Structures are given as C-alpha cells and as structure tokens.
C-alpha cells in the first residue's frame, strides 16, 4: 500500500481534480497534440514562446490522474523558463521517472512528487506524455502528433 500512496500523493490527486493552466491559448505560437494509444490519454499543449522564453503554457485533454497531474505540474514548472531550460528539465524528469527504484533522485522541486512513478513501470508513459509533447512542441522540425508508443 505504501508504494500506492507514494504514487497517488495528495498533491497529485489535487492537480488531477483541479489541474493548473487547464485552458486554451489562442493564438499560441505552438500547439502540439500528444496521444497514448495504449490507454487513450490525449492532450493538446499550447505554448507562447517569445525570444526563446516560454511566456505562457497551457493544456487541454483527458487522461488518468498521473498524466493530468504531470501535465499540470509541468506547465507550472516551465512557465517563464527558456526553451533550453525546459529541455534540460525534460531530461532530468525523464531520468527521475525511469531510474531504478532505490537509486538517487535528481533534485526537481515540486516535480519530485511524481518520483513514485518509477515503482510502476506501466505508468511511466502516463507521466511522460506531457513532457514528450512539450519536447516536440519546442523542436525545430514540425512534427505530427506525438505518441508514447
């Protein structure tokens, strides 16, 4: 039960119930779809990027508590950051949710509440969906919808 309560911490359940930045940005400088065909999680990420800085970021979509909370926490974390900083955050977040249980965790502030995901390998894609979508949204090449498959 302890791993389960680590996964579904109150902070995560709060973000699931009342996600932050859960809205549309129109017009946005970038809009990216993300989709997990395995479970049907689907989100649209909106970005306003000016001079390499993420001025605004928001999302819409439906998904499990983990994917929704992760998207909500991500939007809080990257707002005001440069694109380069957001990419670096992606790398550290990805490292956190895929590191072997028991190993040292990168310092990630509020994002650390999602560290419990690493004990649930089948849920890593849920936590990663918003981040993969962000990575695609800020990539130079235009891309189709991102999927986690």
């Amino acid at each position, binding site marked *: 039960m302890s791993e*389960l309560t680590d996964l579904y911490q109150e902070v995560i359940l709060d973000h699931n119930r009342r996600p932050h930045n859960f809205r549309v940005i129109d017009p946005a400088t970038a809009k990216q779809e993300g989709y997990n065909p395995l479970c049907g999680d689907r989100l649209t990420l909106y970005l306003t990027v000016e001079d390499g800085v993420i001025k605004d970021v928001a999302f819409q979509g439906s*998904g499990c508590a*983990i994917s929704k909370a992760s998207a909500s926490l991500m939007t809080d974390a990257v707002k005001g950051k440069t694109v380069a900083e957001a990419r670096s955050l992606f790398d550290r977040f990805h490292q956190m949710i895929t590191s072997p249980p028991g190993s040292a965790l990168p310092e990630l502030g509020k994002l650390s509440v999602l560290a419990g995901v690493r004990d649930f390998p089948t849920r890593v894609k849920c936590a990663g969906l918003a981040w993969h979508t962000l990575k695609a949204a800020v990539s130079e090449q235009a891309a189709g919808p991102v999927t986690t498959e």
Partner: protein
Amino acid sequence: MTMAIAISFDVDTIRADFPILASSVHGKPLVYLDNAATTQKPRAVLDALTEYYTSSNANVHRGVHYLSGKATDQYEQARASIARFLGAAEPREIVFTRNATESINLVAQTWGRANIKAGDEILVSAIEHHSNIVPWYMLAAEKGAALRVIPMFDSGELDLEAFARLLTSRTKLVAISALSNALGTVTPVAEIIRQAHAAGAVVVVDGAQAAYHMPIDVRALDCDFFAVTGHKLYGPTGIGVLYGKAALLEAMPPWMGGGDMIASVTFEHCTWNVIPNKFEAGTPDIAGAIGLGVAVEYVSRIGMDRIQAYEQELLAYGTDALRQVEGLRIVGTAPRKASILSFVMDNIHPHDLGTIVDREGVAIRTGQHCAQPVMDRLGIPATARASLAMYNTRQEIDALVAALHKARKVFG
C-alpha cells in the same frame, strides 16, 4: 437439463488444473480477470508442450524417420480435434496460423485480393476489434473498394435494420465479430450470415472471443470463414486457426510462399499443395498446434454448453455486484452478452483503477481494448474491463468490488 448441468459445474476442480491460479501478486492471491486479453493454461496443455519437446520433436510432413512421423501424427490429430471442436466438415478446412489476426489477414490477402474490386463494398461492424477493421481498411484502400460500418446502439447491440439497408449488390464481404471484446455483446451472427448470403456476400467471422465463451458450430452457422486464436482458448500463444469452407479455400490463391505449401517447384513454374498445406508455408508452430489440440479436448470434456451456462451465472452475479458500486457505470448492456464487464467510474480514470486494483492482486484490463472506434462512438476515452472465464468465481468478483472500493478511498 441446463439447470442440472450448471449445478454440477465444479469450478474448484477446474481451478486446480491451472497452476498459475494458485499464485500471488503483490502478496495477495491472484484474481485473474483479464481473460479477454488471454486465458491461463491448464496443466494438460503445459504438459503437452513439454512432452512434445521431450519425446516427439521433429519437423512435420518431411522426414521418413520415426520422430517425424510421430510429430506429424500429433500435429494432424490436433487439426482433427480443432475441426471437431468447431464443427468443421473435415480437418482440411482448418488452417494453422499464428492467431486470429493472421487468420483474418490471410482471408484479406488471398480471397480478398482475388475477389474485391473497385467500387465493391466491405461491411464491418461498429464493435470490431482493430484486427477485424485494419486488414479490410488496407484491402479497400488497395482496391478502391469502400469500407462500410454496421452501426451500434448505445447498449452495444448492433442495428440490424441499418445492416439490412447497408447490404446491397455491391456488398462482397461482411466481416463480423461473434462477440465484442470491449463490450461483451454477442452478435446475431447466424442472422447476419443468412442475410449476407442472400445478398451474395461472403462472411468472415472473428471468433477470437466467442470460441472460449460459447459452443461454436461453423456448419450450423454456415459462415464462410471463422478466425480463432489459441491463446484465448486456454492454448499456447503463437497458434491460431482459420476455418474456411473447403471449396473457398481451394479456389483461393496461396499467401506466403515457401516449403510445405508447394506441390512442385522449378525456377520456371511452381504448383501448389492441397489445402490446408497450401496456406502453411514453412515450419509451423508444431508444439503450439499440439497444445491447442489438447486445449480444445480439455474444454470439450468439460463441455462448452456447461462453460457457457456457468459463465452466464457469473455474468449475472458480476453485473449486480458492479451496479452496487457507487459512481460505477457498466459500458455494454446489450441483451445478449458474454461474461465481459466493461465499466467506468466517476472521477477515476480506468488506468488509475487498473493500477490500484492490481495492488490488491486483481488483474483487469484498462484502456481502449484495441477497439478505438467503440470508445469514440461511446464518447469515452477508455474503460476498465473485467473479463470472466470458466475458472473465475463469485469470490473473485467480490475481490474486484472490494478493490474498487479501495480505489474510491484513494481518490477520496
């Protein structure tokens, strides 16, 4: 008679035949309710695999030596067992494939490519698994044919009046599942076949789910093709069958080329073997076929009618039990259903439910169940699904319900 059969069904004895059912998950007794994905294997099947590799292993249809003859006999006996199980007229109407997906693709790539032309129509239904949509989508795209969809009602029941309207002289093929994996709907497949034949169309039945839930008689159904996968029928993975009427199979061109499917080969000219060998290029999954033969003998000894009667009781019990869970809605409420219970819960995504009940030892499937059009049609992203087999019990349904209450607690 039916009553007596149902009462005499001894689930404890059946459970004892399945070694994995005695195992634990996260420190809790395993409650395996994901049978629509794959069923567990009885010891008789596991023993048959070991026995084959221990004392019969050789290639089939090739050698003059003792072991090759023994392996060939066992492989062909398995084919005969499966023919009997499905009610086929003769064993040569049974083609071994990898699974139901391959069986359907075989029909699309051989019968389909030879017979479907531009302007023709292929009918599928709204409840289909991706494996009975995509092969036809690919064929239609290649040939300039049209894919039409028999709609369903919100309950998951097919709209037969719409089917009758869709059926025209342009309809060349109807591909229909006998049982929906996502909703549990039992389709009126005999009636669909009768009407399709009256319109001159060939019918492919996806029997992947139906084969382990109800008695099948392909001759009584009069279907042209019937696709089965072994691993949902208590058999090994990697083996399935395609039933096809002999006359149709004989007229069809081969699909994969290679050893065993030919009568003679020169660089200038090849001729094909007789059915079913014409469709079995290369060394088949011999052990898998033998294992599946043992699996159908195993369920035949119990009796598919008794299995069906027992599972219907479980379905009724499970439906009542789930309906009493606060905030739970059953998805798929057709009048004729098999023991598949799809559901959603208020404010808890199916994926979160799946993770939480797993920690209680309860294995259910969550997601779209390879039936994205069903989810889109119902306007839901996913469902949780408990699919019950002959070895499941009322106590296991109670364990699921208790785990769902726990999920409610976690989510406050």
